[in-house]
């Protein structure tokens, strides 16, 4: 007689509905009351026969059979003799994947002196400030198009330092990238992250004319922004940026511009910050806790908890707005909802070292923009190419299946261990999972599933429209 076990799952009950999340597949179902009660009763039990399972149900026989079959076909009930481990090793094929995105580190220099900046950490502060030359940029662009193989589209990101300090290079590199786009037939998406202090009308017009997506790093309320993002002499930068972004919004004329906020110190102002930045004219605002090895600047557990609570308040506001067919530009939730919408299973936390690499001013290739300049994560250079051995060794070690502490976790296929740079700074090794925020991520994903489930059940068309926000 076949015995069954219940596969790993999470049930979320909210507002009279129950949502079932399957961690193996990242699938989300809405479960009716009987299914939910059944799963509650069976949870943790082993060696269940069909008869024993049916005995828990108080519904007509033919419906019992139907429910049983649904649970089998969705792999929620599994034959016990095929007990499936939560993970399996897999082999990484020794090939280099096509490169789809290059982050050009066009200069090490920056005209702000942000208190928390990973580029101004003591180790790097004394290093020579390098600036990329046009030749290196053009070679990097050629490398990108070449290594993109058959991909129909590539992405180029201008990063720094403050990239607009090297605007001369950007204008030449953009021309070159567009010419290559013309000759190769590959589309290109160009983006730039800036601190907003150097956005003159001339610069903005150039960026707009070449359809370059702009993200502005700004910390929101004037008093907080000036505290953490001053000029090197300590003078405030907020008013300078404010004047520039007014021009930016005017010239971009409806083209969405997102803001990126670093949360340092207190996180109690997050909803006010979102409100403030959306009112200024930003389309979306994303928040990230500061990554630093300076314990005094790190968010402590209490502050992380507070941030989660603020995120949850905003998530509720997002849901209410969405049910009213309005979009609240809270990027963190939008991104999470889209991950949940697709249900893709992730073996890696991000594209670093798979399709994305960063290029430093000398043309060296690193895993990502945050690890630019770290010798240990040098993956080759744009002149002689990527080191297959290094890239494959990285891919082999970085897979979620290699992270012993992650393999039973229910958010493993969404989080995949989290940001490598954060892990390097906080855990001492990019390959280590970010154990310091495990609980945080779980609760955040749970919040996301609750919002997702309600939207999918009540306003599914909103989610489809939402995915267009990130489509090219």
């Amino acid at each position, binding site marked *: 007689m076949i015995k069954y076990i219940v596969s790993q799952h999470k049930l979320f009950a909210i507002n009279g509905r129950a949502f*079932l999340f399957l961690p193996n*597949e990242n699938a989300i179902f*809405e479960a*009716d009351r009987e299914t939910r009660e059944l799963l509650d009763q069976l949870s943790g039990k082993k060696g269940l026969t069909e008869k024993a399972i049916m005995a828990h149900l108080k519904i007509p026989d033919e419906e019992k059979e139907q429910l049983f079959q649904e649970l089998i076909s969705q792999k929620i009930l599994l034959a016990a003799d*095929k007990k499936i481990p939560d993970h399996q090793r*897999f082999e990484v094929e020794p090939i280099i994947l096509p490169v789809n995105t290059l982050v050009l580190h066009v200069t090490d220099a920056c005209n702000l002196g942000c208190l928390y900046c990973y580029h101004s950490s003591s180790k790097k502060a004394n290093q020579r400030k390098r600036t990329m030359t046009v030749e290196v940029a053009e070679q990097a662009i050629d490398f990108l198009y070449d290594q993109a193989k058959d991909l129909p589209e590539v992405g180029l990101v201008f990063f720094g330092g403050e990239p607009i300090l090297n605007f001369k290079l950007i204008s030449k590199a953009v021309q070159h990238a567009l010419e290559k786009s013309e000759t190769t037939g590959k589309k290109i998406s160009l983006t730039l992250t800036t601190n907003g202090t150097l956005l003159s009308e001339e610069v903005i017009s150039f960026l707009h004319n070449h359809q370059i997506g702009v993200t502005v790093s700004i910390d929101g309320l004037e008093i907080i922004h000036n505290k953490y993002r001053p000029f090197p002499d300590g003078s405030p930068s907020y008013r300078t940026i404010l004047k520039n972004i007014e021009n930016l919004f005017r010239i971009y004329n409806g083209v969405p511009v997102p803001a990126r906020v670093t949360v340092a110190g207190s996180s109690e102002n997050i909803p006010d910050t979102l409100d403030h930045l959306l009112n200024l004219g930003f389309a979306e605002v994303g928040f990230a806790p500061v990554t630093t090895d300076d314990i005094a600047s790190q968010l402590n557990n209490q502050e992380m908890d507070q941030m989660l609570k603020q995120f949850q308040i905003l998530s509720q506001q997002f849901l209410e707005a969405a049910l009213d067919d309005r979009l609240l530009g809270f990027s963190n939730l939008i991104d999470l909802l889209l991950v949940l919408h697709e249900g893709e299973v992730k073996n890696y936390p991000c594209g670093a070292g798979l399709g994305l690499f960063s290029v430093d001013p000398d043309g060296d290739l690193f895993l990502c923009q945050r690890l630019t300049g770290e010798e240990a994560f040098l993956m080759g250079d744009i002149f002689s190419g990527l080191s297959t051995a290094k890239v494959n060794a990285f891919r082999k070690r970085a897979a979620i299946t290699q992270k012993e502490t992650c393999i039973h976790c229910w958010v493993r296929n969404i989080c995949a261990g989290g940001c490598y740079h954060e892990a390097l700074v906080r855990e001492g090794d990019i390959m280590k999972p970010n154990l310091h925020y495990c609980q945080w991520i779980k609760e955040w994903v749970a919040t996301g599933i609750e919002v997702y489930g309600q939207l999918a059940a009540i306003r*599914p068309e909103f989610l489809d429209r939402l995915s267009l926000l990130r489509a090219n």
Partner: protein
Amino acid sequence: MKKKRLKALNKKAKRMESNEVFGMADDGDITTQMPIGCTTVFDTGWETNPRPTSPVGNCVSSARDFSFCSGPCWWPAQTPDGITNFPGFQNQCRAVEKDWKKLNFVIKR
């Protein structure tokens, strides 16, 4: 068919509901690192199903039999089911790497 008790909400759940393959190569080559299609080598090393989903350890082509057949991969979905209708089908083929030629067609009567 009565009302379903589990309603698929996200795309992955909908794919599972429509009995497409799940958790395997359709997740995109970056995430799974799995080749699609058959191999002529009877080696379940590199092509072993890496996912914590049924059928564990089977080769990809065979795993696909559980859901759908893709591209040039023809054989698994067209192999008679050896559990219900043709239990003796593979008896003529003790060691598949040597005897696969003996596998014959079946005609459902």
